[in-house]
């Protein structure tokens, strides 16, 4: 028998073939890892999607500022995640019950980290990269909601705190194997753990900042039109593209059946979100407003993120369609209560993030997913994130201030914060009238 073993190794065990101790062949490990790297660059491109969507839906005098925020945030996100976020989110051992753990500063691995002994689906480095791209997402979501009035330095500080501390701790509760995971909470790719986290931060920021000048006059909302709709559309398509990696990569391997199924539910939910939002806008607002359709697409994507692998194809269409309807009413509702969110980030990421998480409790094919536990997760994450974000913005407001001066807001943050103009060749008057 032993001889035979040796012989067989010679025969089958080419250079790259796995050895007996391995959980998967070297080939399978490599293809899994390659898919995870593809997913990583797809999630990366979502940051360009956010940058273009947010700048497209705001005024041209604040465009440079938004682009700068989105470019810087991903840098800050990646670096702080390397420094501490990764080890806060995946601490291995928890210190405080299953609420908090920390595996130390910096990233490093031994040889084993690049074999399937680390994980059958990816190397240590791939793991870090994929997770780091997610981390930056949560902070970027905030950026759209607080646009056109927040001071750059305050935004950067609060974001760094959020991405380095709040996001990883909350994330560890579920994906790091913490108490929410133990409780049976399910969130496949982060309707709650990523999108709602971003949404709660956005909500706190919007409350403390107040609305943009001229947004609400005598109790009525006055629209401030997005300056560049092709840019916004590019943003949404890139986000959709990135979502193939966001959800598809959350399978954590290249498993053919699972990844392709997740592609299907994700795509159909986005499509249904578009139709849901378009129909709603056409019926309720009389015309199919493009910005609502774009929000509808993202609503469908956020909605399906919690359950992409665990609901049926039919359910994915329903989830997306409802998300598309929800997002339109949510945008209108936030305007009613004078919470000024220029790009609809809270409606997309918070409202539909909650919806998607609860939808798992309704539509999941896995009977262990219950509505109640899902609700618990939503609430726990909500209370924590909102409180932390509120506190950080509040401290900043008391200290260095979070809002630019009236004159700078009127003139535009591009000149005020950066000395730049986004379109100097066709500089518009800065009055905001149509």
């Amino acid at each position: 028998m032993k001889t035979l073993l040796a012989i067989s190794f010679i025969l089958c065990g080419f250079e790259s073939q796995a050895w007996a101790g391995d959980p998967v062949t070297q080939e399978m490990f490599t293809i899994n890892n390659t898919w995870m790297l593809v997913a990583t660059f797809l999630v990366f491109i979502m940051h360009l999607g956010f940058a273009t969507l947010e700048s497209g839906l705001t005024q041209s005098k604040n465009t440079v500022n938004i682009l700068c925020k989105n470019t810087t945030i991903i840098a800050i996100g990646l670096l702080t995640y390397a420094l501490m976020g990764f080890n806060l989110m995946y601490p291995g051992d928890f210190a405080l019950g299953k609420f908090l753990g920390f595996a130390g500063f910096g990233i490093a691995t031994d040889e084993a980290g690049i074999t399937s002994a680390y994980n059958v689906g990816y190397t240590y480095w791939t793991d870090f990269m994929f997770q780091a791209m997610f981390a930056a997402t949560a902070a970027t979501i905030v950026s759209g909601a607080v646009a056109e009035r927040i001071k750059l330095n305050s935004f950067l500080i609060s974001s760094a705190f959020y991405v380095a501390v709040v996001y990883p701790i909350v994330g560890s509760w579920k994906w790091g194997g913490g108490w929410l995971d133990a409780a049976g909470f399910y969130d496949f790719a982060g309707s709650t753990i990523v999108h709602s986290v971003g949404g709660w931060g956005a909500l706190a920021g919007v409350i403390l900042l107040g609305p943009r000048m001229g947004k609400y006059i005598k109790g009525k909302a006055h629209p401030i039109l997005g300056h560049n709709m092709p840019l916004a559309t590019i943003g949404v398509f890139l986000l959709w593209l990135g979502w193939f990696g966001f959800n598809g990569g959350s399978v954590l391997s290249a498993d053919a059946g699972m990844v392709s199924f997740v592609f299907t539910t994700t795509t159909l939910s986005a499509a249904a979100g578009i139709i849901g939002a378009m129909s709603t806008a056409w019926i309720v607002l009389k015309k199919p407003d493009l910005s609502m359709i774009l929000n509808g697409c993202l609503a469908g994507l956020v909605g399906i993120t919690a359950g992409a692998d665990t609901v049926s194809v039919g359910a994915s269409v329903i989830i997306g369609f409802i998300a598309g309807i929800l997002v339109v009413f949510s945008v209108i509702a936030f305007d009613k209560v004078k919470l000024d969110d220029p790009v609809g980030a809270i409606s997309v990421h918070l409202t539909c993030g909650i919806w998607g998480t609860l939808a798992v409790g309704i539509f999941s094919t896995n009977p262990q997913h219950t509505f109640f536990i899902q609700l618990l997760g939503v609430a726990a994450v909500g209370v924590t994130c909102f409180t932390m974000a509120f506190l950080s913005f509040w401290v900043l407001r008391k200290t260095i201030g979070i809002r630019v001066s009236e004159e700078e807001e009127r003139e535009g943050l591009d000149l005020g914060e950066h000395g730049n103009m986004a379109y100097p060749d066709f500089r518009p008057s800065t009055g905001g009238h149509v």
Partner: protein
Amino acid sequence: MKKIEAIIKPFKLDDVKEALNEIGIQGMTITEVKGYGRQKGHKEIYRGAEYVVDFIPKIKIEIVVDSDFVNQAVDKIQEAANTGKIGDGKIFVSSIEEAIRVRTGETGIDAI
């Protein structure tokens, strides 16, 4: 010399230009302006909130002509720019005291 300022609907520009060419007027300056008047704008909805597009794109044509020419020019413009619908615009006439051609320094009628 007189200055004629005509505020017209943008798509009528080519017609007006040709009409003026016919009577030998070949110099003019145009500006993209927005007009507010009897032609009410329309209400639109963006992200659920109403707004009024009440300043409507127009073209302003300015021509400086010899005083004798004014009536003819005004008639031509009025004819060419007319659609019979509200918002067709206005023509205003005022006095110009002097004109100078930058290139040559010529003045008065010679300059235009």
